[in-house]
C-alpha cells in the first residue's frame, strides 16, 4: 500500500503542538498548588491564608465588655441596630491595646447625614434633614446624643420625618390640605413615633367630606357616589391621597 507523504510544513507544526501540550502538562505538574481542588475549584490552603489575615473589626460585644454603660444606653435607643464600629471605625486594634489606639469619634455633620440627610427613597418616618437648612454648620452632637438620639424637642413639622410625602403632596391637588386634615395625630406620636402611630382615615366618609356628591365643598373637586363607588374598600386602598391621580 502506498503511504501518502506528509507535507513538509506540517512537521514543525506538529512538533510545536506537541511542545505546547507537553509544556502545559509539565506546568500543571510543577506549578499546580498541592491542595488545589481539595474542597472546590481553589487552593484549600487559601482558607488558612484568609484565616490568618489581621482582623480589623472587633464586633459590638467586645465594645460592650468595657463600655457597658454606653452600650446599654444605645440598646434602649433607636440606634440599637447600629453597630459601634459603624460610626467609630474598625476597633480591633483598640481591643488589643486600649491605651495606644483610640477609635475615631466622628464629629462632622457629613457623617450623620450619610443616614439622616434627606433622600426621597429612604423609608418614610426615617428622620431626615436638609443639612443646609437644619442648623447649618452646627455639629450634630451639640443637640443630639448619638448613643441615645432622642430629639431635643418634638418635631415642628411632619416633614422632619415624612419629607418625601410632604414634597409629593406639595405639588398635588391636595397641596392646601394640612396633614391633620386626614390623619388623626395622637400627641404621643411626636414623642414616640414608632410605638404610637398617626392614624390613616378609617372610614370612607373622611374623604367624602370633600368628594361625596352631596359634600359642601368647592365645585371643581371631583365627586363620587359614596354609597356605590368602590363599595367595601377604603378610599386610600385604591387612590394614593398624597398624589391623587387627577393630578397626573
Amino acid at each position: 500500500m502506498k503511504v501518502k507523504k506528509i507535507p513538509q510544513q506540517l512537521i514543525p507544526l506538529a512538533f510545536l503542538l506537541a511542545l505546547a501540550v507537553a509544556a502545559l502538562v509539565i506546568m500543571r505538574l510543577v506549578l499546580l498548588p498541592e491542595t488545589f481542588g481539595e474542597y472546590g475549584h481553589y487552593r484549600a490552603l487559601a482558607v488558612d491564608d484568609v484565616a490568618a489575615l489581621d482582623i480589623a473589626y472587633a464586633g459590638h460585644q467586645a465594645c460592650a465588655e468595657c463600655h457597658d454603660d454606653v452600650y446599654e444606653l444605645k440598646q434602649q435607643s433607636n440606634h440599637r441596630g447600629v453597630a459601634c464600629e459603624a460610626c467609630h471605625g474598625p476597633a480591633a486594634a483598640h481591643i488589643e491595646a486600649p491605651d495606644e489606639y483610640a477609635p475615631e469619634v466622628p464629629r462632622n455633620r457629613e457623617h450623620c447625614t450619610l443616614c439622616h440627610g434627606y433622600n426621597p427613597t429612604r423609608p418614610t418616618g426615617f428622620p431626615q434633614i436638609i443639612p443646609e437648612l437644619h442648623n447649618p454648620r452646627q455639629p450634630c452632637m451639640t443637640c443630639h446624643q448619638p448613643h441615645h438620639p432622642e430629639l431635643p424637642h418634638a418635631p415642628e413639622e411632619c416633614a422632619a420625618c415624612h419629607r418625601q410625602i410632604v414634597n409629593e403632596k406639595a405639588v398635588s391637588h391636595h397641596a392646601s390640605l394640612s396633614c391633620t386634615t386626614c390623619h388623626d395625630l395622637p400627641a404621643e406620636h411626636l414623642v414616640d413615633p414608632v410605638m404610637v402611630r398617626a392614624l390613616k382615615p378609617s372610614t370612607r366618609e373622611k374623604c367624602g367630606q370633600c368628594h361625596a356628591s352631596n359634600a359642601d365643598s368647592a365645585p371643581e373637586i371631583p365627586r363620587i357616589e359614596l354609597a356605590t363607588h368602590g363599595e367595601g374598600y377604603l378610599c386610600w386602598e385604591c387612590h394614593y391621597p398624597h398624589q391623587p391621580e387627577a393630578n397626573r
Partner: protein
Amino acid sequence: MELILGNIVNDLSKITGYIYPNEFELHWGILVVVYPYLTGLVAGAFILASLERVFDVSSLQPVYRLSLLTALAFLLVAPLPLLAHLGHPLRSYQMFLTPHTKSAMAMFGFVYAWYLMVVLLLEIWFDYRKSIVVWSNEKRGVTRYFYKFLTLGTTDISDRALRFDDKIGRIITIIGIPSAFLLHGYVGFIFGSVKANPWWSSVLMPIVFLFSAIVSGIALVIMIYMVTTMFRWKRLSMPCLNKLAELLFYAIIVDFSLELLDFVQRLYEAEESITILSQMISSRLFISLIISQIILGTLVPTISLAWARFGRVPDEMRRLMYFIAALLIQVGIFSTRWNVVIGGQLFSKSLRGLTVYKLELFGLEGALTAGLLLILPFLVLFVLTRVLPPWSAVESHVSESPV
C-alpha cells in the same frame, strides 16, 4: 477619614434617587470598555479577510493580508486591558492550568488561545510561507536568520507545497469564521447572560455585539488601508475601497436594525426597569448614546456611505467621505461599548436611582492607560507590517486610481 468623607459627600451629591451602597463605585471602568472594543475590531477585521479567502471577493485582495495583520495586532493587545483591570497579570497563566468549565470568563482564555494559535497565526503563517522562504534567502545579516527561524525549517515552495498551503489556508479560514463569531459573540454573551441586569440581559446581545464588531472591523481596515497607502505614496484601489464601503454600508444597516429591534422589544415589553432605563438614556447616556452612538456614529456615516458609494461623487470626495464615515463609526462603536459597559452599572438594582461614573485621568484604570492601549495595536501593526509586508504581493493588481 474627614477627607474621604468630604469626597464621598461631593460624589454623593451627583447621585440621583436611591442606590445601594455597593453601587456607588463602578467596578468595570474604561478598561473593560476598551476590551470589547478591541476584540470587536479583531473579529471584524478577520471576517473581512475571510470574505476574500472563502467567498473569493477578489476586489478585496489588496486588504486581505492587511486585515489579517490588523486582526493579529489588535488580538495581541486585546487581553491587556483585562490584565491591567484585574491586576496580578503574572497569575493569568493559572487560568490555563486549572480550566474551570463552568465559568464563561475562565473559558475565554481557551477561546482566545484557540483563535490566536490555531486560527490567526496559522493562517498568516501559511499565507506568508512562500514569502518568508524567499526573504530568508534574499535578506542579509540578522534578518536572514530571523526569517529562517520563521520558516520553522520548511523550505519547500514547490507548486505542490504551495497548493497545499492554499488549501489548508482556506480550511483554516472556514474554521476561523465561526471562531471569530465565537470570540466576539462570547463577549456579548458575558454581558447578555447577566440575568440580574436588565440593561445587559438579552439574548440578542451576542448577535448585536457580533455585527457591531463586523462594522467596526471593516471601518478600521478602511482607515488603515487609506492611511498606509497615503504614507507609502501608492495608489488606492478604488474597486477595493468601493467594495469595502459597500460591505460596511450593509453591515451597519443590519447592525442598526438589530439594535433598534432590541430597543423596540425592550420598550414594548416595558418591564419594571424601563422607567429607570429611560431616565438613564435621557440623562446620563444622552451624549454617548443619542449623540455619539446613534447620530454621529450610525446615522451620519450611513448616509455618508450611501451617498458616497451610490451617488454621483468624484473619487476624491468619495474617499474623503469614506474616511470620515469610517472614523465616525469608530467613535460610534466605542460609544456602543461604553454605553453597554458603563450604562449597565449606572442605574441601581433597586431601579430607583442613578449613580455616576468617575473617570480618572492617571492610574491603572485611568483614561491615559485606555488611550495607550488604544494606540498600542497600531504600533504592533507597524512592526508587523515591517516584518511581514502585506502589500508586496498585491501591488501589481492595484488599479490606476491616484491618491
